[in-house]
């Protein structure tokens, strides 16, 4: 039998003060950072703003992108490169809080306009001239229009060829040269026809998100309610299934988890967006999962070992469930590491939060929830003991 741990007897509760000091110092620092230094960044989803992701035909250095964008007045903007080819960028702009009140009154659609302006600015003059001359950007043409262009030449085959070109474009993100299309098996006359009617746009918009202040407030309210109701729901369930002491300890642990994760967020430059809130709720669910496994064991042991000291009994329970805690945490964590590494930019914040949450959740179920339960027992000294 392969074992990670042979019969461990680690006195976990001995380290309770150290663990409490460690966690709550970080949380205190995080709270100070959040409230006094605005350490916590709300993403586009909640603060209102735009997120535009573009891919250029030719590499464009980040400084060039920045200088092109500085011509138009953006609020606070952030430019992030994706990959290493200098082709793909994520551009975020947020409506600054100060101007928000005016923007709301003046124009509900300020963010939408902003997003379009960002894209317009990045388009080259050459593109603009081509568009003015009535040519169409092959990077943004839809299938019907493409088929219409090809129709006089290819007749009923036009639609299938248009589909082929579009599939190729979807796969590559952007069509870089006419030669690429030749390799696709299109005839010279087809390419000439396309050259006559289209141009190779210098950038493709991969995604464009704009969230106005009204929508931002709405999403923020929904997210807040989701968290509050989920916490309440779990507290009620715990109170029904266990004694109140366990429910309160579990809830305090959850607060600890959320606060600690928020603190880490406030120290790193990551933003809180919608997926991150979902990750928060999941980590809350996961962490309580861990806590319940240990509490369940304590409950069990209280029935068997009636004479044991409560502190020893807790240590024993933690040790008995230790290999399960580590194995489950480990396999889940490995899955999430894969997601962080291969999941791509879109899911990165979400996966990172979950990973962080699993680590914090595993730690807190041992080093926070048990001390909380211990103090409850110390302070209230329940007459009937901790059994249920």
């Amino acid at each position, binding site marked *: 039998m392969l074992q990670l741990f042979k019969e461990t007897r680690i006195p976990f509760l001995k380290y309770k003060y150290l663990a409490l000091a460690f966690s709550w110092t970080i949380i205190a620092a995080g709270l100070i950072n959040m409230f006094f230094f605005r350490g916590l960044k709300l993403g586009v989803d909640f603060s209102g703003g735009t997120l535009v992701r573009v891919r250029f035909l030719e590499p464009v250095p980040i400084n060039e992108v920045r200088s092109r964008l500085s011509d138009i007045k953006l609020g606070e903007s952030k430019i992030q490169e994706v990959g290493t080819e200098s082709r793909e960028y994520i551009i975020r702009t947020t409506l600054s809080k100060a101007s928000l009140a005016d923007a709301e009154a003046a124009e509900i659609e300020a963010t939408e306009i902003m997003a379009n302006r960002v894209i317009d600015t990045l388009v080259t003059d050459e593109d603009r001239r081509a568009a003015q001359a009535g040519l169409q950007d092959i990077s943004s*043409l839809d299938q019907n229009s493409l088929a219409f262009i090809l129709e006089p030449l290819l007749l009923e085959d036009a639609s299938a060829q248009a589909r082929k070109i579009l599939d190729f474009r979807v796969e590559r993100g952007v069509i870089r040269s006419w030669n690429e299309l030749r390799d696709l098996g299109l005839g010279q006359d087809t390419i000439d026809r396309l050259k006559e009617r289209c141009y190779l746009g210098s950038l493709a918009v991969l995604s464009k998100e704009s969230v106005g202040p009204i929508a931002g407030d709405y999403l923020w309210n929904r997210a807040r309610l989701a968290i509050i109701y989920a916490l309440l729901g779990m507290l009620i369930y715990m109170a029904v299934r266990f004694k109140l002491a366990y429910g309160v300890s579990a809830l305090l642990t959850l607060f600890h988890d959320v606060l600690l994760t928020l603190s880490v967020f406030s120290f790193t430059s990551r933003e809180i967006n919608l997926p991150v809130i979902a990750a928060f709720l999941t980590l809350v669910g996961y962490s309580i999962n861990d806590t319940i496994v240990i509490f369940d064991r304590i409950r*069990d042991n209280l029935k068997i070992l009636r004479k044991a000291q409560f502190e020893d009994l807790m240590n024993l329970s933690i040790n008995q469930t230790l290999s*399960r805690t580590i194995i489950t945490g480990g396999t889940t964590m490995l899955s999430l590491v894969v997601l962080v590494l291969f999941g791509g930019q879109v899911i990165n914040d979400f996966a990172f939060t979950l990973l962080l949450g699993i680590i914090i959740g595993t730690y807190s179920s041992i080093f926070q929830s048990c001390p909380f339960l211990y103090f409850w027992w110390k302070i209230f000294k329940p007459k009937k003991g901790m059994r249920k």
Partner: protein
Amino acid sequence: MRRNLLARVILVLVVIGTAFILGWPPKKIPLGLDLAGGMHLVFQVQTDDAVEIYVDQTIGRLKELLSRKKIPVGAFTKKELGRFTMSQFSPDDEGKIRDLLDEYLRDWDYGFTAGAVNLTLRHAAERTLRSETVDQALATINNRVDLFGVSEPTIQRQGGAEGDRLVVELPGISNPERAMNLIRTTALLEWKLVHAGPVAEEAALLQNFGGQVPEDMEVVKGDPKKTEGGYYLVSRVATITGQDLSSVNLDRDEMDNPAVGFELKPEGSARFARLTEENIGKPVAIILDGKVQSAPTIQDRISDRGIIRGRFSIAEVRDLIVTLKSGALPASIKILENRTIGPSLGADSIHRGLIAILASFLITLVFMVFYYRGAGVNALVALLFNLIIIVGTLGALVTMKIPVSLTLPGIAGIILTIGMSVDANVLIFERIREELKSGRSVLSSIGFGFSRALSAIVDSNVTTVIAAFFLIQWGTGPIKGFAVTLIIGVCASLFTAIFVSRLIFDLVVPRHRKVEKLSI
């Protein structure tokens, strides 16, 4: 638990078989916007517009009623939204006006002051009006999207009967700009006789009219993209509007450029015939949302058919046809939220998501088999069944027309489920190991392992379901997809880890002979 082995085998086979049939082919589960590409739009219907229009209509109706009853009234002034004042009538007529308001303007509260009467739109009426406006806008957008040819669009009203928001989801749109324009144009199409213009300066337009716009005329601008621009002086009242069209179709003008061909309903056709007959040689302006698209000169009497030409691209003609067929929006709409994901980004996400699922499955597989040997294989069979059940349940929901879709967070939910469903197995296996160590027989260790781990497994999974439930309730968009797969995964893992995995133990470990060793 050892009884009914055959019945249990059949039950598991039936569940898995059903899940397999329901989930096959997995392609039928629609992909969310973040994977398929598409648009998620939230609009606010400017219901104030509708109230404003209603006030104008009421004033118009009141004027007509008053003139029919021969009651002279001097002036109407609009106050804040939903209120107006009628003044300068003779005090003798007050009684008659009172009767008239009571009879015809039931939606309005009124109060007389010295020489004037203030009218206020009733609260209930205003609320109904606003609500109907949102419904109409929804129906119009629905029509447009249908005609535009989007597969599986969803258009919903947000916030119940009081809400003025519409959520529009259009998967697989390859030209977002065009879709956006199509939805947003009010699409009020009017034909009005041109009295002067086009000229570059507004003042020059009014030279022949003494510098003032005559009562029955108005000034409109040419659409800079479609005409040379400039100003036109046209009749205030439209001869025909989009509502008079009986059908529209794709057509070409004599220069072979794309144009919209139209046919008129009998009533509109009579009016159009009269206009064209009386005004041969004069231009008539075709005005879309207040901008002149073209102003062709009337060559001959036209009654029931014609074309609308302008410098249209083929796409623009198609879209114009769609908007004309679906009718005008009752009020303008504003964009609150716009999330447009291009198809290539979605394709990239699918690719990455699949790699991540596969990799996490492999990692778990290697670890479990390495650590738990025979029992590890057992856990993997359970996990595989779990994945089949997830896909099958999603397939069943699709078949039942419950809107679910696979999103990127949904894939993350599956990956998390892989991690967490193994947890139930780990809890059980660790417990069995403990029982074995304490000297129990293999058979009773398995029994105790399962029964003692049960409470922890159920409690911990229920809390996860509680969290996920609130995500479905309060979450938006892709987040819902995450919560859905997580709930299905967690529930499936209760079945696979407790029931299926126990069954496998019972099948593998012989019942009657004394078993010395268990591969765990």
